């Protein structure tokens, strides 16, 4: 394997910093229950920080079991008195109205998301927030067409839905959860991740602006204990969770002996397969996007790159060259490719796993060109080449900008290696031959397969995993099923 790669000539980019003037962050952020912002009965607050600087942005209410109970009562009342009685047509109109308001507040939402999460502004602005609006638009139109959801079946809403979402796409995950739940006639109690509560609280203001009836969506901020109070509440009909497989297992056990319905969108170790007949330069770009998009904090990240042996050396060289040009730094800079790691805890977890990889003898590479900012939580993109399937980083979800590379010689070996994981969320295939793409796609045990692209999302396209990546789908017609009694 060649170890040389071309260092590109150095290009200086003048910083192009997005202004934060548009965002006004409250010092203390309350819970959103029954249409109003209320103090937590716990009286407790915790800090949320800007991961790009490490400085505190605001205080967030810490909801305890009593607060969760108030939220559930509010959701139950809204369900039985208002939302379940409202026509689908009118529910849809509220969702359309919310979608429009999200577009009107797009810049504000994007800046706030970047401040609290650390993702590059170009991603929050061009991907997250447009998809949030699109998701509400898509499901708005379903609200009065649920008779067509499953052929020949009468469907009904489930009731009160408890939802727990992660910090990697805070507002997008909120949209994925809330929009289909409301379209199907359910009411919601939702908990954002404790490090990223701000954007969903701005969404709450949009709900108020839209005149959404009180109690239809209730937002309880807090950490694991708040989530557990939702999962264990006995007046919730369904739990939807996105997060780690570890927590997903705890939730599956917690609701096992109840009548609660459950959908889980969990972790992954998705394979990204590049055949020798691929358009190599595009595939390099795809591999970069697959693992370094959103700092690698993506459940479906293409974290295992499988290269056909004949092109592996050339591909790895090109990958190195491309990685040298990735700009890591201030997420508010419109040039930034890789922003801040969301929290100190995640940052140290990623660094530990990289050390594990190095100690197991992986061929480590990180670009030498970029310097990381002194403050905040930043991580250089990196990869381990020539790893075996027993290698820790071939098996464990890192949830960071860390790629594991190995090779294969045939279609069947590529499929076997890709499927050699307990996960089954996503996979990528690069080839210029359509029949080969379809053959590979059919053999992969994964819920989402991207051919000659990666990390594309659309509200009309179902997303979700096989095996230990969870069950249930979000997006598309299939995304209605988990929120309906069939």
């Amino acid at each position, binding site marked *: 394997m060649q170890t040389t790669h071309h260092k590109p000539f150095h290009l200086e980019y003048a910083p192009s910093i997005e202004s934060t003037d548009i965002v006004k962050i409250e010092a203390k952020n309350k819970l959103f229950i029954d249409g109003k912002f209320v103090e937590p009965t716990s009286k407790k607050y915790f800090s949320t920080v800007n991961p790009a600087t490490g400085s505190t942005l605001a205080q967030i209410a810490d909801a305890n079991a009593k607060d969760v109970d108030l939220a559930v009562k509010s959701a139950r009342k809204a369900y039985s008195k208002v939302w379940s009685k409202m026509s689908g047509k009118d529910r849809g109109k509220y969702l359309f109205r919310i979608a429009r308001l999200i577009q009107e507040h797009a810049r504000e939402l994007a800046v706030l998301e970047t401040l609290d999460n650390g993702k590059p502004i170009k991603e929050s602005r061009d991907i997250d927030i447009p998809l949030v609006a699109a998701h509400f638009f898509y499901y708005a139109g379903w609200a009065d067409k649920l008779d067509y959801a499953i*052929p020949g079946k009468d469907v009904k809403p489930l009731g009160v839905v408890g939802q727990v979402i992660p910090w990697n796409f805070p507002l997008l995950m909120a949209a994925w959860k809330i929009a289909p739940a409301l379209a199907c006639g359910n009411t919601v109690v939702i908990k954002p991740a404790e490090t990223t509560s701000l954007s969903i609280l701005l969404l709450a203001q949009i709900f108020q602006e839209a005149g959404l009836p009180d109690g239809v969506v209730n937002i309880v901020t807090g950490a694991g204990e708040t989530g557990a109070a939702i999962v264990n509440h006995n007046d919730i009909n369904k739990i939807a969770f996105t997060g780690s497989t570890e927590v997903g297992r705890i939730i599956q056990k917690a*609701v096992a002996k109840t009548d609660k319905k459950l959908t*889980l969108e969990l972790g992954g170790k998705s394979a990204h397969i590049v055949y020798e007949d691929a358009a190599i330069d595009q595939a390099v770009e795809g591999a970069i996007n697959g693992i370094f998009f959103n700092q690698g904090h993506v459940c479906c990240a293409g974290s295992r790159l499988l290269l056909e042996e004949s092109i592996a050396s050339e591909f790895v060289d090109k990958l190195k060259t491309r990685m040298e040009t990735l700009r890591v730094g201030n997420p508010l800079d419109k040039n930034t490719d890789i922003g801040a790691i969301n929290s100190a805890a995640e940052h140290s977890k990623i660094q530990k796993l990289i050390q594990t990889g190095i100690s197991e003898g992986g061929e480590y590479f990180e670009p030498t060109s970029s310097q990381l900012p002194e403050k905040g939580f930043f991580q250089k993109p990196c990869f381990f080449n020539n790893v075996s399937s027993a290698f820790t980083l071939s098996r464990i979800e890192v949830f960071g900008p860390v790629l594991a590379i190995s090779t294969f010689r045939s279609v069947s070996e590529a499929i076997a290696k890709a499927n050699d994981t307990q996960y089954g969320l996503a996979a990528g295939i690069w080839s210029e031959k359509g029949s080969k793409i379809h053959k590979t796609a059919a053999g992969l045990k994964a819920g989402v397969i991207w051919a*000659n*692209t990666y990390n594309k999302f*659309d509200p009309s*396209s*179902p997303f979700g995993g096989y095996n230990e990546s969870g069950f249930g789908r979000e997006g*598309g*017609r299939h995304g209605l099923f988990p929120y309906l009694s069939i």
Partner: protein
Amino acid sequence: MSELTKSSANLKIAKTIKLFIGGDFPRTESGRSMPVFQAKSKKLYANLCKASRKDLRNAVTAAQGAQHGWAAKTAYNRTQILYRMAEMTEGKREEFIEVLTGTLGYTKIQANKAVNEAIDAFVYYAGFADKYQQLVGTVNPVSGPHHNFTTSEPVGVVALVGNVKFNLGDLVAQIAAVIASGNAVIVIMANEGAASIAPLSEVFATSDLTKGVVNLLTGDLQELYPHMGTHMEINSISFQNSDKKVLGELKEMGATNMKRVIGPVKEQLSLDHLINFVEYKTVWHPIGN
């Protein structure tokens, strides 16, 4: 068995009832048996095998080995094989009636009705094997140059626990709903109708079904269900038994490998029964030069 005692010129030969694993008819490796009595009597009808954990594991291995090939068959082929099961059930009508009247005390009319329902269930799912895909598959109008479509695939290896009270038609519907989409199944027959394993396994053995796609075990549910719940190669459980305690425990144990544990269905013959055991795969295929 009881017929043995009847005086006759020809001494009747009773069929030894065994398990059905991987297309073969083995006895339980444990050497254990459990008696089934004639209806409303203490007279022995037959000694059934009391399947062990090892038998269950062998059945899972057989199911896993068979599932891929079964799923790879064309939907048209699976349809014909399921229809063949209906044909073979019709051919074994008298044997089914003999078991149902002999062990469950059905009248001949009741037994005939049960066989009719079993046949109807096979025919229903035979007809579905090449159609459900069009009802739950979608082409998704994504914003971008991609042909985006969602298809269904079998979930893999499914363990099935039938009704508390034996019902031949329901059991056949539950098996057919699982295998129609290309899954393989391990059935725990633990209720009073377990002796029907004899004609039922012969139906599957003579329908050109890939060996190992259907595996039938007679045994004790209380003994076997923990091994079902924790087995890492079982992808889903169809739990049609009304014992909520066991269902809860199976869901709890199933978290070890995120098993899809499905509780009792509302309608035996329905689309939702079948699609409980499929996964959805979404493919983004490029459009361009």
